[in-house]
């Protein structure tokens, strides 16, 4: 599917934010924005749906907590009962203060690692993947907004983007949409 997109480059995150809001107010479709660093509030300004990564992180944390409890209960209480801190109660609950650090660590461990792996899978990132970045300057100090121009008057759109503070505007014919 051939599509026409416009790449508008900005040099400041505040100008970019304002531009994103204006472009959306005019009902143009922003395909993607490439930035050298995370811009706070950009996802909201672009109208992206809320990330569900936080929910997965919570669930992974619960898994980690469960693993920690099950593991320590088996190792320290059931399989080889241990006298912890001179208090031979042989009860998980009564010895819990000693287990809390591990419960905490494994919760964090599971949440963090599985969340990162989920993030990579969801954003289709893996080792040796070819970068999708359209312009290397967005890894340095430029911000690039990709606007769909297929069903619009290109000249009008170009002028409009220039008014929003873009320092450079390119019209690109994409052979196929790789998103």
């Amino acid at each position, binding site marked *: 599917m051939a599509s026409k997109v416009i790449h508008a480059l900005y040099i400041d995150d505040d100008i970019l934010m304002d531009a994103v809001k204006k472009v959306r107010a005019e009902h143009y479709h922003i395909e993607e924005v490439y930035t050298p660093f995370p811009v*706070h509030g950009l996802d909201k300004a672009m109208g992206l749906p809320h990330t569900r990564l*936080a929910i997965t992180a*919570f669930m992974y944390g619960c898994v980690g907590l469960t693993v920690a409890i099950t593991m320590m209960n088996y190792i320290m209480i059931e399989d080889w009962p241990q006298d912890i801190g001179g208090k031979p109660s042989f009860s998980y609950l009564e010895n819990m*203060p000693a287990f809390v*650090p591990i419960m905490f660590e494994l919760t964090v461990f599971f949440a963090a690692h599985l969340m990162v792996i989920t993030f990579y899978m969801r954003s289709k990132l893996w080792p040796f993947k070819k970068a999708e970045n359209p312009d290397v300057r967005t890894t340095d100090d430029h911000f690039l907004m990709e606007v769909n121009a297929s069903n619009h008057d290109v000249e009008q759109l170009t002028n409009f983007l220039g008014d929003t503070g873009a320092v450079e505007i390119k019209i690109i014919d994409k052979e196929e949409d790789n998103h």
Partner: protein
Amino acid sequence: MYTLSNRLRLFSVILMIVGLVGLVIGFSQRPGSIEEVKEMMASHDAHGGGHGDSQIKENHGGDEGHGESANEKDAHGGDAHYEHVLHQLQNKPWASLYVAAFFFFMIALGVLAFYAIQFASQSGWSPVLFRVMEAITAYLVPGGIILFVILALSGFHINHLFVWADPEVVAHDALLQGKASWLNGTWFIIRAAFFLGGWILYRHFAVKYSRLQDEDTTGNKWYKKSFKISAAFLVFFIYTESMMSWDWIMSFDPHWFSTLFGWYVFASLFVSGITTIALVTIYLKSKGYLEFVNNSHIHDLAKFMFGISIFWTYLWFSQFMLIWYSNIPEEVTYFITRIEDYKLPFFGMLIMNFIFPLLVLMNSDFKRVNWFVVMAGIIILCGHYIDVFNMIMPATVGKSWFIGISEISAVLLFLGLFLFVVFRALTKAPLLAKGNPYLEESKHFHY
């Protein structure tokens, strides 16, 4: 400008009067002699078996917390226990007065520290909240004076809150004799005056400079001065706050000590202070003031409530776990007393101060929903009241605790005073610190 509504004024005055009346009743109901204690306990026994049983058990149970030897106990005979209970019940209204006075004072102190941090870190998000913070710290002066009077009464043994202030106890206690050069009435009161004086002095100048900066359109002269005194204050604060926590709280159990106690009390007062900022801000917004405060500011306050609640838990656990694990008698007695005699408030506090805010405030969207923040805030404040209760009551009233008329009245009294002072202070200046150089950034703060 904010105007104090008559309803709020009346409400706070009624709270104060009800609290005062309740406290007078609480003080007048103190038993005067051992006979009265026996009578009270007998009537309790008649009321319900369950409670009576625990009272009888007390008669035989050893009181390890006070480190008395078994022989001594036997020698005292039957009346020794009743005398003990008598002292505890006589202490009870004093202790509840102290808990409430300290709790509301520590809110103002926590807000003062938070306010100073905003200046020292040159924060851009918070200047729209400065007038709310300044108003809450106004309670520092009346609250501090009341607390000082109570401390003086206790330090000079007018009441029996501090064991170390009782010359008879010290005469038989080698450990207290060793600590007497630090824990004695005069030096105790001098330190208290020094701490309070320093904090009130910073508060006075910080507020003054903030007002002067409003009028100063040419430069940031007053802001820069605020920055300097805030940085200096924070250094002063962290030392004095730590010593304050040893003096005003840890010395209730003068045999026991914990090296991170100052941090622990700091976390408690910090989270209470931030919660109060959020509650007052949301209240003012609901009345149509503070139109420049958006939900990102509330979100940030709620993040602090969440984060500092976890920080508090971290310190609580660090203190508890090491002492629990090592199980050294002179250390672990502190927690044994609390777990055996204060099971409900001790573990209830953990639910209110940790589990509840953790689950309620974890979700990012909930931190922007005002009623969620208010609900979590009220639970956090109640939880930290109980935290202070747990730190003070076991050493002053021991097993004879219950949340009765004097506890509730003391809270009402200081709540009324707090509301009155804070909301009256809000009327004294415009609600926007318009001279602050970061004001525009703060107004446009979004997350």
